[in-house]
């Protein structure tokens, strides 16, 4: 009977001092980790959405500028054609070279002109117009053959490494 009592006294308790603290630290660490992960995930998604929204806004701002420049060019083409339809292409080439508002290419059968509008830091909106020949101007003096985003900075392919030389 005595031996039984002694064994009861020396039995290991279910909750030891310190085990509660350890469990608590583990739980708090887990919860704080989940909280940090969810905040960082949500923040990354929000920043990405903002980036897309900003890019969209930049595109429409550039597009607006491109349309305004298109309007100036169209009015110039219209004035030149009304003044001298016989020497239309020559006059257009001369006038556009003077204003330098667009790059021109009059070497081909269908002359074209192009211009770029900056879009953000690393991109540009490139517009290419092909001039309609006299007699085929029912829809206007030009047709838009390209309206696209292009990278404005050229890629630097220098991927050489500074290796130790002997």
């Amino acid at each position, binding site marked *: 009977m005595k031996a039984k009592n002694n064994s009861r006294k020396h039995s290991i308790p279910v909750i030891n001092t310190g085990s*509660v603290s350890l469990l608590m630290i583990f739980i*708090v660490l887990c919860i704080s980790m989940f909280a940090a992960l969810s905040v960082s995930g949500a923040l990354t998604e929000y920043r990405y959405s903002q980036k897309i*929204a900003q890019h969209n*806004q930049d595109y429409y701002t550039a597009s607006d500028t491109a*349309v305004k420049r298109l*309007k100036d060019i169209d009015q110039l083409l219209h004035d030149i054609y009304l003044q001298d339809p016989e020497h239309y292409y020559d006059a257009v080439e001369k006038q556009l070279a003077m204003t330098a508002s667009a790059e021109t290419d009059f070497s081909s059968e269908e002359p074209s002109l192009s211009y770029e509008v900056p879009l953000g830091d690393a991109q540009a909106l490139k517009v290419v117009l092909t001039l309609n020949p006299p007699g085929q101007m029912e829809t206007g*003096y030009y047709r838009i053959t390209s309206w696209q985003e292009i990278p404005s900075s050229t890629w630097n392919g220098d991927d050489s490494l500074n290796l130790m030389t002997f």
Partner: protein
Amino acid sequence: MNELSKNTFSSRSSLLLMEIILSILFFSLAGTVCLQMFVKAKLLEQDTAELDMAVRYVSSAAEFLNQPERTAESVAILYPAASVEGNTAFVWFKKDFSSCSQKEACYRLEIRVLQEDTHTAVWSAVLYTESPAEEIYRLEGTVYQPYTPQDRH
């Protein structure tokens, strides 16, 4: 001897009790901070969803308006429930961005088309929250109808 073991047991119990009380305090403090972080994450997610939908709807309206013949009245093609007042069209949306009447609305899409001259129109598409009225996203642009030799200044 028996008295000594009783004392040891009682001091152990009080130590354990103290530890549990301190742990609960620490847990409630850490829990409050973590809960705030979870709430912040949830709010950020809501803002992201709102901005995404705003960009989608405003861009859709912008593409629609980027045609020379479009006016505020023609917005009804895109949104049959739109209300047109002069050169401005209003479209109302519920929280889930389904079209609805003004009474149930959480968001308002305002589309404006102004004719600058015979060849140029300026448009804007803005999405607002209904109450309080705050702008979420805006796009603006110009539409140009090209000249033909038949046009005279």
